[in-house]
């Protein structure tokens, strides 16, 4: 119950901010942070719960963006429809990738997911309808009441998407699916011996993960009013979506959220005040530091802190 209250408060807060007189740039930057909440949560479903390190976030994100563009260009579809379609297509891509690669162990799976990124990017580069390598300018439709600007509306839409993503992740975590995924992460062979349907569960996780990443990508073209392949399929999305859960903590749904909010906010502040590169450097350095020194992330550190405080009494 507490969870649902929390989610409702989050959406109300987002809407309230959007209708207030807060500076426009807050929503521009806040959109990106919320987008990473969705991406990190989505990544964690396969990467954190099941232990399959997916480097291919950019592929699902990019295909989601391009699906939205196609729907927008062909039929002038509204944002909600773009997001749904993007989720469906990326989910399908996730399913297909899973079929092809989930039989491979560890690093082979990860490298295969990188391959998917480049193949999808090459496909979009060669498709003139969506602009090829040149890209496309996109004129946003007029914004609907009561929002003052399209960016504010996107901010609220992304907040709702984040709430949906977190709810799905939480559901998976506490259900039998989560138990099965954890068994796979601990020892896939043992899980299979116990009759856990490992392939089905992994495919499910891969599909859901891909669908959510695609949904996050759908809002990107409208946000930028522009789309082009290199930035849509940038490996930076992959490394961020991986770093944020690793930093926040991979075993609980709250971990990716903490990681995304913390790292995303730092990134946005650094982009505005210092430079764009330092932004990526921050991600890389924090990832390495946490992976080496704090493998259970911020949540793990908090747990240790609580244990220390309790045991010192």
């Amino acid at each position: 119950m507490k969870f649902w209250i929390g989610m409702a408060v989050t959406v109300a807060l987002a809407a309230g901010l959007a209708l207030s007189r807060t500076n426009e740039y807050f929503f521009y930057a806040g959109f990106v942070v919320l987008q990473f909440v969705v991406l990190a949560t989505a990544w964690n479903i396969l990467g954190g719960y099941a232990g399959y390190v997916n480097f291919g976030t950019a592929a699902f994100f990019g295909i989601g963006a391009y699906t939205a563009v196609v729907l927008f260009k062909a039929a002038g579809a509204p944002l909600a429809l773009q997001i749904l379609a993007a989720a469906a297509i990326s989910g399908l891509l996730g399913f297909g990738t899973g079929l092809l690669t989930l039989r491979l162990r560890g690093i082979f799976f990860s490298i295969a997911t990188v391959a998917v990124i480049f193949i999808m990017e090459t496909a979009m580069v060669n498709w003139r309808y969506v602009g090829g390598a040149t890209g496309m300018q996109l004129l946003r439709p007029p914004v609907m009441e009561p929002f003052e600007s399209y960016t504010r509306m996107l901010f609220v839409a992304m907040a709702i998407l984040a709430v949906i993503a977190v709810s799905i992740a939480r559901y998976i975590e506490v259900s039998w699916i989560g138990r099965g995924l954890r068994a796979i992460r601990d020892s896939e062979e043992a899980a299979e011996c116990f009759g856990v349907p490992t392939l089905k569960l992994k495919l499910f996780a891969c599909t859901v993960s891909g669908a959510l990443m695609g949904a996050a990508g759908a809002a990107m073209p409208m946000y930028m009013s522009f789309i082009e392949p290199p930035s849509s399929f940038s490996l930076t999305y992959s490394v961020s979506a991986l770093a944020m859960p690793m930093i926040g903590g991979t075993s609980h749904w709250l971990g990716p959220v903490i990681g995304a909010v913390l790292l995303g906010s730092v990134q946005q502040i650094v982009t505005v005040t210092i430079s764009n590169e330092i932004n990526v450097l921050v991600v890389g350095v924090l990832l390495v530091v946490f992976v080496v020194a704090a493998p259970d992330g911020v949540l793990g550190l908090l747990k240790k802190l609580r244990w220390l405080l309790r045991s010192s009494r």
Partner: protein
Amino acid sequence: MSFELLLEAIVFGVLLGCFYAAVSIGLSVAFGLLDVPHVAHPAIMVLGSYCTYVLGRYGWDPIVAGIALMPLFFLLGVAIYRFYYESFEKRGSDAGVRGLAFFFGLAFIIEVGLILVFGVDQRMVEAAYIGRSLALGEFRIPWRMVVAFGVALALTAGLTIYLSRTFTGRAIKAVAQDEPALRLMGANPVRIKQWAFGIATGVTALAGAMLIVVGPVEPSLDRVYIGRTFAVVVLAGLGSMTGTLAAGLILGISESIVLMQFGASWAPAVAFGLLLVALGIRPQGLFGR
């Protein structure tokens, strides 16, 4: 599609393929033999290219610079492996995922570091053999490709001989095949792996020099080379040096033909496509154990 163009494409493909093999050979050792999830290998190669560029500004010939950098990169490799071993390999099961994430993060740190120091501009080197071509009748073969081909061949041959003829070389192969047995025979597998990783990284310095001879470099070049190097290593079969050469040639020739027939927009997908096909159909590669 004329026969002459096809022939030129194949010749270019052979030169390119040998270059790809040399670029991947460090990964063949690090990943193929030592099982280290070294996704930062292309990034270290690009680092080698930039070091070559810096030396080039002082008048060094790029290939000479590459050879001079090898001992430095050897030490770098030893340091990286030591760190990786202490942080991950020792600790067991979960380490696989985190080790992978570590190398991914390392690759990004190197890439961004290069951007911060050198900017995003393309960098080139000058040499007597860059910018001129060998004329064989109607064919024109750029000298820079011939030089890269020669160096690549020498490097591959050298490493193959080292691994099969010398004592440490064979110890490296042994540790890849059966680590417990090696331990029982009194050799320290960690030291051997450290040494091997160092050699793999040292070789990568020369690969980086070849990379900047063949064309201009920029910091994000490592991204597309992840596909090329892993495609070669997987197609070869883990741990096979001659396999690396064969796989490199296959990749080089396919890329060259696709380039000629379909244009440069499809070329990057060749390596990654080959990689997926290899993983899907024959994960142990052509010559794998």
